[in-house]
């Protein structure tokens, strides 16, 4: 759901775990082979098999944060509301709702039950809100599904849950689509759900073999899907099979041993060649973030604009994605998001090296012996980038460094090998970073581009954009999509000021054979999953 590094390709992730790779390959070979006789075999029956790139780890809905776990939990746990691809909110377990900028009231549909037979009531929902909102419970879902400072109250007779916050939280309703609903008994011992379910949604977990596969079976009597849809058209069984290698996943897909997989690397080509169809959503793939802390080159707006103007972003886009990328239109929100306006096009500094030179000169820089200097100091910039994004990103970074060097900037590429570039950003020792940040709601971005820098906050680049600050505050005072125009103006201000440079988006593709479904930023939308080719 939320990823610092966007959409890392799986074959690269395999390389990150080299020490065990040899063993894993051999065991993996046996595992894939052994699984063929198991639930994964054949395309017939009513079983649908998805490949997932990594073991989900814990599946406990209040602590799970891994993308795989979140996606699997959408099959087992229902939501108060769902959000359609165009951003409209659709009723789920809540049959109706209302919201202000600091509160929301949901009316819970009657007849919703959990796997153990207990009814899901307004009290349960309120208890879950309060559980996640309590800092003592250390739930990473705080801020994602439940707003910070939230407190919930239930009215049993009216079947309503009222959530109030002391800080503005304009998207309480939209956030609820991330809240996996739990019955009271589960909330008392959330750790028990690490490898089991007490489902409130259409599927229940019947078998969990960590590192191999997870089998979900459809629940009978499920009638509270999005817009009141039922489970009768859903496949009887859904299996998530752990396939760490993307090429293997593509092979399994082509030979009909699995039905769906995310394929982002070069294997797309042969899947496309054999007309395997895919569903995709656009995700921000390349975004540069300047460090504006005192003493960093990015603190000077002229330097930021000049560094961007020197680059041909179209060229970088093509190199970074092998020609598969598109210009970014958002600064990190992935579908389903309520604000869908284009905040990037026309706001990025244009490719114009002459203008860049003029800007630097006007800001007091002089070109001395082929290098731009100011007060005797050369213009030096290091571009940090995560190596797990694949060789194409490394090539794009090299190209940018080359362009800056020939322009007269002492530029270097700084590969970051650890699993997440966030650690580097929080550490503070960087000038410029390749750091796309993926979220679903505009207010989740304010912590990155406004407010206190680390260690007190997440404003990694120490940005102080007064327009963003003002417009975001105004937007946060309006509930839901009412604030979209203001959010979009605020985000455009960041791009115009060259605080961030979102320049390439890339589709995350879910390839499918023998099944149809819709996808959004959380993965496959369970209620849309159908067997058959749909042709």
């Amino acid at each position, binding site marked *: 759901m*939320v*990823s*610092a590094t966007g959409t890392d390709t799986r*074959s690269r992730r*395999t390389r990150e775990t*080299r020490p065990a*790779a*040899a*063993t*894993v*390959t*051999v*065991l*993996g*070979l046996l595992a*894939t*082979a052994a699984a*063929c*006789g198991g639930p994964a075999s054949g395309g017939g029956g009513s079983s649908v098999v998805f490949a997932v790139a990594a*073991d989900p*780890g*814990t599946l406990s809905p209040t*602590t799970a*944060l*891994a993308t795989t776990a979140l996606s699997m939990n959408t099959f087992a746990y229902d939501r108060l509301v769902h959000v359609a691809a165009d951003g409209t909110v659709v009723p789920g377990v809540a049959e109706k709702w209302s919201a202000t900028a600091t509160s929301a009231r949901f009316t819970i549909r009657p007849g919703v039950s959990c796997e153990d037979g207990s009814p899901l009531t307004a009290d349960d929902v309120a208890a879950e809100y309060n559980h996640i909102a309590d*800092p003592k419970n*250390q739930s*990473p879902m*705080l*801020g*994602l599904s439940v707003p910070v400072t939230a407190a919930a109250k239930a009215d049993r007779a009216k079947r309503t849950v009222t959530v109030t916050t002391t800080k503005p939280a304009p998207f309480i309703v939209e956030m609820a689509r991330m809240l996996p609903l739990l019955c009271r008994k589960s909330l008392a011992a959330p750790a028990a759900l*690490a*490898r089991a379910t007490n489902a409130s949604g259409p599927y229940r977990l019947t078998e969990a*073999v*960590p*590192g191999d596969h997870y089998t979900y079976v459809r629940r009978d009597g499920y009638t509270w899907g999005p817009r009141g849809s039922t489970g009768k058209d859903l496949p009887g069984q859904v299996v998530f099979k752990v396939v760490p*290698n993307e*090429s*293997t996943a593509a*092979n399994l897909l*082509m*030979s009909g*041993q699995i039905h769906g997989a995310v394929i982002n690397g070069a*294997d797309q080509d*042969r899947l496309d060649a*054999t007309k395997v169809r895919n569903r995709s959503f656009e995700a921000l793939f390349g975004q540069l973030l300047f460090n504006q802390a005192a003493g960093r080159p990015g603190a000077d707006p002229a330097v930021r604009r000049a560094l961007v103007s020197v680059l041909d972003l179209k060229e970088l886009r093509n190199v970074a994605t092998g020609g598969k990328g598109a210009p970014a239109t958002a600064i990190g929100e992935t579908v389903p998001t309520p604000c869908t306006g284009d905040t990037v096009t026309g706001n990025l500094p244009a490719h114009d090296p002459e203008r860049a030179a003029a800007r630097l000169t006007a800001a007091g820089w002089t070109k001395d012996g082929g290098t731009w200097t100011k007060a005797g100091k050369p213009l030096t910039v290091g571009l940090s980038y995560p190596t797990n994004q694949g060789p194409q990103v490394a090539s794009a970074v090299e190209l940018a460094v080359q362009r800056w060097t020939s322009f007269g900037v002492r530029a270097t590429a700084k590969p*970051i*090998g*650890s*699993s*997440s570039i*966030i*650690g*580097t950003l*929080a550490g503070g020792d960087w000038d410029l970073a390749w750091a796309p*940040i993926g*979220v679903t709601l505009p207010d989740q971005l304010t912590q990155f581009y406004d407010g206190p820098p680390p*260690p007190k*906050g*997440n404003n990694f680049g120490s940005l102080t954009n007064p327009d963003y600050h003002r417009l975001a505050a105004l937007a946060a005072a309006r509930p839901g999509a009412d604030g979209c125009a203001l959010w979009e103006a605020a985000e455009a201000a960041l791009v115009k000021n060259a605080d961030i440079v979102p320049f390439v988006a890339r589709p995350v593709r879910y390839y499918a054979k023998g099944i149809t479904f819709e996808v959004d930023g959380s993965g496959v939308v369970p209620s849309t999953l159908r067997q058959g080719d749909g042709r």
Partner: protein
Amino acid sequence: MTALTSNPLGATARGPWAGFVLRRTRRLVVSLAALVTAAFAVIHLIPGDPVRAALGPTADPALIEARRHSLGLDESLPKQFGHFVGHLFQGRLGDSIGAQMPVSEIVAGRLPATLQIAVPAFALILLIAVPVGMTAAVLTKDGRRRRGELAFTGITGLLGAVPEFLLAVGLIAAFAVMWPLFRWPPAPAWTPTCCRYWRSPSSRRRPCRASSGWRPCGCSGRTTCGPPADAPARTTGRESETAP
């Protein structure tokens, strides 16, 4: 050997086996201590904050602090090391930061499968390696059969040097495809690799053994074994290329 000569009295007093066991035990303890220390040090030496990486970019700094506190990562290093070793002796492996589950549970979930392969493999190794090695040692004792010794050390050295994943593919090709002694695991998942291996070294086309029990890959209707019709062989080969 060195300890034996440096302490001949002790060795003879307790007999050669006692000395041997003592030496080996000492070595084991030192190795384990080094391993435990290294395992502890790694999490502090690798760049980046594991807690932050596990909680994602949107994690509130207060939450990160709270999690660090509950994991004990905010204490001094010697204290943390003390806790780590102390818990280890009690068999408490703690929780995985990434998976957010008890490590013992994660290990327990995977251990049976590992043992299923490792124990028979180890038994097989003992059954073959020890007699063969002893025989080779006896036959080549005192510089006899120089060529035989060279051949033996050469072959075992080569087998030891070849990466396991390559050796495994070779063994599958040999024992499941060339001479189908083992028909388990079922073929489909790995036949693309096998076919490639099967075909390319000799670059001769061999008849597909559709009748012999294993499913030929992409040979439907054909009598020769080639790249599978719906799964090009080269891409499966990549799996092993990324592994080293």
